[in-house]
């Protein structure tokens, strides 16, 4: 199999390996392209996965060191065991995790990718044959930032890490970044002996890890999807840096491709919230004391039976789901209620805000799981003109995405974000656990509006009560 190819001075194996990298790179591009259309998305994921598998297998079989030696049996076994461990662990977690925790999981997986890049760079730094010191150091720094940043993002999504709003964080971050750059320049200058350099690299690693933490800490929890997308492109770039060390085209292309696609995706996500990326990173979101001077008004509650009557005798009902629905795992009972109402002749639609829940598309995934028909999910821009003709809007565990302050209160931190204009509907019923503020910690005056009734309780219990009441009517 491994005979020399005439005239080229390379073996067949090396040719096959490079060709498989080319194929893998093409598969990645096709995969991501297909992933960006709803009909082909699942196939796209398969293409990308196939590309990765191909590159892994051919590397295992055909890769040769500079000296020309292939991968030894002992090493092969070690690698296969490591791969098996990662695969089993990764796919079991990915299969078992609840749909609500998916954003957290993406964040964790991104962290492991960043960690892997940082580790590879760390080891390669001490390799005397490696001449690309700058690229190695960049890979180390970017990978470490992606790792620690993603871990903090995970902590925030999971509610384990709170938001830190402090003006000095901006300057602290700039300072740490400056320290990182100085370290890289100092190591690059190469005036220090190898032993000192080894120590310096570990210090650099530590500083980069700290930067990842301080970079994400001041960013509001509601902006975590954007941050994860950004850190995802960091991981891609870090992987490409490692590809540069090995002159490995599949790694360079795959990494840079994810880096640039991820950056564009990040910008698109910001656009969906009508904000700029810079605004997300620098302007800390939420916690603002905006609108405190406004009259709070009176909160009016509604009982399950009244709500059931109101809903059943309407002709048009729109349901606006939010993270509260996800947390309570109430998507199934929500669909049950929608079906009951339809049997009564009520037209029921679900209004999906692009950033409802903890991630874009979060609600679509949840409702699809509950087998809500696709046609019933209506996007924000399509449902808003219909709002004044809607009899009842049922808001389930959503808050910031229906906050009218985004439209009319320039002092509000969410001013300018497009919202579902539920306040224009004839009646609004808001299901909420209590009077607590939303994820962005902003007061919502919708709750005090004349046409709004509050239905307190966990989304699942409240919906179950509603279902029972509607059945009894």
């Amino acid at each position, binding site marked *: 199999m491994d005979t020399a190819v005439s005239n080229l001075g390379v073996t067949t194996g090396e040719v096959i390996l490079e060709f498989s990298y080319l194929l893998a790179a093409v598969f990645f591009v096709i995969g991501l392209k297909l992933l960006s*259309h709803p009909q082909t998305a699942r196939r796209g*994921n398969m293409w990308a996965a196939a590309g990765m598998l191909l590159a892994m297998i051919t590397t295992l079989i055909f890769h040769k060191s500079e000296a020309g030696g292939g991968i030894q049996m*002992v090493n092969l076994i070690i690698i296969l065991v490591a*791969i098996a461990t990662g695969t089993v662990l990764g796919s079991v977690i990915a299969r078992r995790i609840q749909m609500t925790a*998916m954003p957290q999981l993406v964040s964790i997986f991104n962290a*492991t990718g960043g960690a892997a890049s940082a580790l590879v760079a760390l080891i390669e730094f001490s390799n005397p044959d490696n001449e690309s010191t700058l690229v190695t150091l960049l890979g180390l720094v970017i990978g470490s930032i992606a790792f620690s940043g993603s871990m903090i993002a995970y902590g925030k999504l999971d509610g384990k890490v709170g938001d830190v709003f402090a003006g000095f964080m901006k300057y602290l971050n700039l300072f740490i970044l400056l320290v990182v750059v100085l370290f890289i320049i100092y190591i690059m200058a190469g005036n220090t002996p190898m032993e000192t350099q080894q120590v310096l690299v570990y210090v650099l690693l530590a500083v980069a890890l700290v930067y990842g933490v301080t970079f994400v800490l001041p960013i509001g929890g509601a902006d975590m999807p954007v941050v994860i997308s950004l850190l*995802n492109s960091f991981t891609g770039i870090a992987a490409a840096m490692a590809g540069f060390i090995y002159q490995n085209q599949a790694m360079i292309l795959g990494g840079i491709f994810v880096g640039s696609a991820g950056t564009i995706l990040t910008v698109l996500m910001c656009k969906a919230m009508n904000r700029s990326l810079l605004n997300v990173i620098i302007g800390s979101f939420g916690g603002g004391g905006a609108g405190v001077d406004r009259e709070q008004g009176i909160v009016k509650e509604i009982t399950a039976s009244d709500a059931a009557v109101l809903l059943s005798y309407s002709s048009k009902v729109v349901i606006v789901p939010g993270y509260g629905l996800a947390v309570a795992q109430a998507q199934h009972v929500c669909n049950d209620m929608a079906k009951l109402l339809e049997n009564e002749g009520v037209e029921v639609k679900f209004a999906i805000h692009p950033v409802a829940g903890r*991630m874009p598309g979060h609600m679509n995934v949840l409702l*699809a799981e509950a087998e809500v028909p696709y046609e019933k999910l209506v996007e924000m821009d399509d449902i808003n003109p219909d709002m004044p003709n809607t009899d009842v809007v049922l808001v389930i565990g959503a808050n910031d995405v229906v906050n009218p302050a985004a439209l009319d209160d320039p002092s509000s931190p969410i001013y300018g974000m497009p919202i579902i204009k539920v306040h224009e509907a004839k009646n609004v019923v808001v299901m909420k656990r209590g009077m607590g503020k939303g994820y962005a910690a902003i007061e919502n005056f919708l709750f005090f509006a004349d046409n709004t009734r509050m239905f307190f309780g966990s989304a699942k219990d409240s919906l179950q009560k509603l279902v029972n009441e509607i059945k009894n009517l």
Partner: protein
Amino acid sequence: MDNLIAFFYTNKEAIFIIVLTIFLGFEVISNVPSVLHTPLMSGANAISGVIIIGGIILVGHADTSTLNINLVLGILAVIFGTLNVAGGFVVTDRMLEMFEKKRKK
């Protein structure tokens, strides 16, 4: 300056790939419906696990005669990389499975 010129010249192929790929990435991700933002991010995240190839190369040629720090770190890199790849693709598939289910009905 000489260093930079030398760097560019010796790595010209890689730099070509990088620049063209940046444009490719921008082009491929255009007009994506917001519904797909999360699966797309997750799928791209799985692809960024391509660092696994680096891990395989590293451990593949590592000195296994003694248990050294580089070997241990390398094995960790392979495990982390695979977690990113396998977990990433599986979780993306799970998200997209939902879309498919409802389309069949």
